[in-house]
């Protein structure tokens, strides 16, 4: 595996971590108080940072570091995750994603945005800008007690503490090459066989290190828990350009200690109070000398620290097979680019710890995720492998050919009349197998819509910010699976619709309050499976479509005549008309009124449909219905005017042979068929598709009753039904662009091409109604 592959794996894992990060932040935003959620969020950022460090992606590391520092405050309970705090964090997650993409693809990033978020995050970490006002005591820069330490005779006694004031003064000049590490082990760290001593020793190996211990939290000997943890250390490492080696030292201990690593020039961020306290070992009252007054300011916020400890679940039994001596040196040498690490501890124990933990289903350490797919596989209950999408597509294509070939073979056998029962049985089994192979292969491509939905939450945040609206995005059915191609193509129309919903659908906070609604608008994004398709709904609780305005606009634009009598539904659907925009001024957000017609077209290209239901004052619901896969389709093969067509089975309700008595004329052109006491319009497919000029006689054909997107039923008139079969979809778009009334094509068993009907488009086209513009528009365009 070469470096590029490792790098690619890192980026793939970044995607997962970013998704985890966002999920966690959103959960916190929704009031989740589980410490494990905070931990997961922290781990995600930390893993990205660690990996980025290994690849020297400095921008990414720098940002992730600041982000992580602030998250750590949340983790340790020093920063309350209020909505304001989470807002900054969610934006930071967006920037982190941008930076990751920038590192991966060389995209440009918005430096200003990143810089301003760094400032926001740092402010939060310092305890500023938190609306709850819960400011940790130790965030106060209390440098006052320090001068005592300058006491000359004492410093001679205090030889072991190589921390002098000169160091503070020189910080600015040393900034480029040093880091200040604050390290407070928790009892768990010792409990797992690790020791502060070993970690300190390894840090000291990295460069010139000045180590100072703070023992101010040390209780009385009689009261102390000998296996507790009361000491903390500050280590100033110089001669180090990059903090990654330090991180690697603490890699396996970081969940069991409070750790900050900051460039030494940036020392103000490291809780100055502790810097002072670190002189504590010196300060203890000596019998010979008068106790120095340093003790007094020693522990400003010990209780905050204590209460802030978040228990991290860890299965200690994972270590059962290891001796203490084995576990005692978990220096993270096994990082992907181990060559760069300065730590010299043995590799084997590190791996065995992780593996022992992994075998028990314990997440050994987030850091391990960097180590590649094989390690990941061991970690989860259901192992996964990463496969190049091209390979899957090739397989799918081949299976498609296999399906066609199997159909052709079956047909040949039938036609040659050579079929013995054994041959026919074999063919049937082959068909069964082909079907199973196909389903399994399709399942490989099926992916949850979650990543796209998560992208939408970012869009919502950004648009809400730009428009000054307050929006809450609720997602449902994120785990609904659909073909990867559909997912990939879904993002764009979905983005547009979400933007539209926030920009046009939801009212401003003032208007909402005036209308007696909560200030915060709600946008619901839901996915579900319904009769072999995926249905995606985007619902807002805004003002609904202003039909008066839509109608006026449509008349102005000459889309409808001034006296047109349109139903509410028809007016609502006008917004999908090309060039239609109700926004009085063109905004950056929703574009120039090319929005919804483009959305509609791209969804149609996916073989999908879109509809809208709107209630004035209550909001609008956009419903998209898409095929689960773009590769195969169950269809009814029919003939119309000597052409073979395929009607998607999902649309068909029933088929019937019309009797002359059941056919009724309605107006000059329209005919209705009466089915069980209801009248259903007849749609002559041959005429709609211009296969013939004259209307066919329904009595000589077959009526295929279909359900349309709007919920109504129509009877499609076809000449005959040939049969029902699964067909492999071959797109027409690539060669012919969008063909009105036709969704795609397929190859039949006899090798002929058959067109797959776009039922809704055909139904809409049959009305010859301008308010139902698909066919006329597409024909014009």
């Amino acid at each position, binding site marked *: 595996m070469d470096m590029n592959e490792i790098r690619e794996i890192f980026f793939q894992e970044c995607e997962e971590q970013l998704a985890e990060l966002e999920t966690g932040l959103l959960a916190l935003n929704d009031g989740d108080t589980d410490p494990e959620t905070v931990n997961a969020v922290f781990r995600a950022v930390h893993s990205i940072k660690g990996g980025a460090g290994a690849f020297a992606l400095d921008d990414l590391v720098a940002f992730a570091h600041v982000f992580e520092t602030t998250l750590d405050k949340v983790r340790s309970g020093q920063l309350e995750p209020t909505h304001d705090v989470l807002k900054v964090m969610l934006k930071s997650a967006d920037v982190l994603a941008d930076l990751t993409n920038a590192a991966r693809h060389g995209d440009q990033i918005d430096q200003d945005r990143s810089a301003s978020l760094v400032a926001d995050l740092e402010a939060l970490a310092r305890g500023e800008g938190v609306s709850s006002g819960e400011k940790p005591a130790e965030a106060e820069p209390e440098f006052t007690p320090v001068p005592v330490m300058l006491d000359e005779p004492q410093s001679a*006694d*205090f*030889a*072991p*503490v190589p921390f002098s004031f000169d160091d503070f003064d020189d910080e600015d000049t040393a900034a480029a090459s040093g880091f200040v590490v604050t390290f407070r*082990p928790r009892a768990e760290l*010792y*409990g797992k*066989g690790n*020791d*502060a*001593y*070993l970690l*300190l*020793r390894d840090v*000291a190996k990295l460069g010139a290190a000045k*180590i*100072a*211990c703070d*023992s101010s939290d*040390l*209780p*009385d*000997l*009689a009261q*102390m828990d*000998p*296996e*507790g*943890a*009361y*000491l903390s*250390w500050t280590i100033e490492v110089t001669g180090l350009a990059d903090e990654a080696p330090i991180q690697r030292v603490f890699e396996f201990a970081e969940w069991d200690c409070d750790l900050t690593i900051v460039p030494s020039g940036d020392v103000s961020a490291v809780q100055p109070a502790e810097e002072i306290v*670190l002189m504590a*070992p010196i300060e*203890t*009252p*000596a*019998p*010979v*000398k008068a106790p120095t007054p340093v003790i007094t300011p020693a522990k400003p916020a010990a209780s905050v620290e204590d209460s802030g400890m978040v228990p991290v679940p860890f299965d200690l039994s994972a270590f059962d097979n290891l001796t*203490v001596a084995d576990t005692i040196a978990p220096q993270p040498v096994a990082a992907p680019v181990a060559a760069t690490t300065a730590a010299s501890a043995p590799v084997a124990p590190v791996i065995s710890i992780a593996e022992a933990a992994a075998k028990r289903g314990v997440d050994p350490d987030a850091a391990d995720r960097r180590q590649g797919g094989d390690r990941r596989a061991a970690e989860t209950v259901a192992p996964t492998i990463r496969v190049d999408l091209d390979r899957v597509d090739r397989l799918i294509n081949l299976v498609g050919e296999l399906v066609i070939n199997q159909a052709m073979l079956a047909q040949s056998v039938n036609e040659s009349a050579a079929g013995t029962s054994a041959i026919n049985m074999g063919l049937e089994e082959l068909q069964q197998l082909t079907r199973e192979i196909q389903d399994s292969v399709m399942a490989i491509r099926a992916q949850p819509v979650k990543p796209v939905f998560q992208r939408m939450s970012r869009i919502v945040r950004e648009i809400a910010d730009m428009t000054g609206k307050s929006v809450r995005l609720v997602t449902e059915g994120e785990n609904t699976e659909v073909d990867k191609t559909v997912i990939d193509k879904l993002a764009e129309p979905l983005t547009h619709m979400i933007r539209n919903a926030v920009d046009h659908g939801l009212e401003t906070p003032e208007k909402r309050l005036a209308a007696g609604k909560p200030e915060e608008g709600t946008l619901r994004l839901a996915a579900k499976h319904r009769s072999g398709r995926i249905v995606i709904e985007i619902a807002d609780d805004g003002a609904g479509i202003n039909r008066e305005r839509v109608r006026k606009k449509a008349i102005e634009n000459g889309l409808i005549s001034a006296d047109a009598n349109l139903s509410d539904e028809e007016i609502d659907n006008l917004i999908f008309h090309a060039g239609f925009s109700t926004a009085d001024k063109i905004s950056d957000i929703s574009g120039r009124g090319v929005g919804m017609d483009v959305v509609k077209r791209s969804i149609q290209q996916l073989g999908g449909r879109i509809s809208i239901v709107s209630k004035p004052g209550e909001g609008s619901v956009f419903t998209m219905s898409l095929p689960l896969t773009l590769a195969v389709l169950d269809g009814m093969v029919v003939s119309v005017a000597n052409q073979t067509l395929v009607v998607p089975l999902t649309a068909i309700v029933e088929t019937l042979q019309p009797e002359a008595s059941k056919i009724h004329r309605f107006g000059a052109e329209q005919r209705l068929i009466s089915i069980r006491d209801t009248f259903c319009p007849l749609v002559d497919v041959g005429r709609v598709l211009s296969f013939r000029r004259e209307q066919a006689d329904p009595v000589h054909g077959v009526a295929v009753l279909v359900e349309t997107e709007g919920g109504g039923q129509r009877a499609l008139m076809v000449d005959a039904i040939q049969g029902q079969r699964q067909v492999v979809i071959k797109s027409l778009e690539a060669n012919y662009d969008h063909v009105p009334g036709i969704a795609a094509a397929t190859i039949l068993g006899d090798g002929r091409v058959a067109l797959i009907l776009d039922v809704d488009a055909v139904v809409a086209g049959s009305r010859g109604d301008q308010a139902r513009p698909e066919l006329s528009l597409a024909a014009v365009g």
Partner: protein
Amino acid sequence: MMDDAQIVELPTVLDLNAAAPLRDRLLARRGTPLALDASRVERIGGQCLQVLLAARNAWQCDGAGFSIDRPSDGFLNALRQMGFAGDLTPATETTR
């Protein structure tokens, strides 16, 4: 070294497992001057350091003598790594 002090020999390994026994041993001698013999110490970890520091504080509060004598190289090194000299106290008799 204090003449009247009880001499307590520190064990070779002062790790997690040694912390509780060490504390108990030292507590049992509370009130009497103490001289800890660190000559055999090969390893000392953070938790035993805590015990020693707490003991030093306690003895100083009591005004009783407390010293660490004949520190081994291992002991000195480990303490240095943890930000301390071989003596936890400012005792003058400790040599380096």
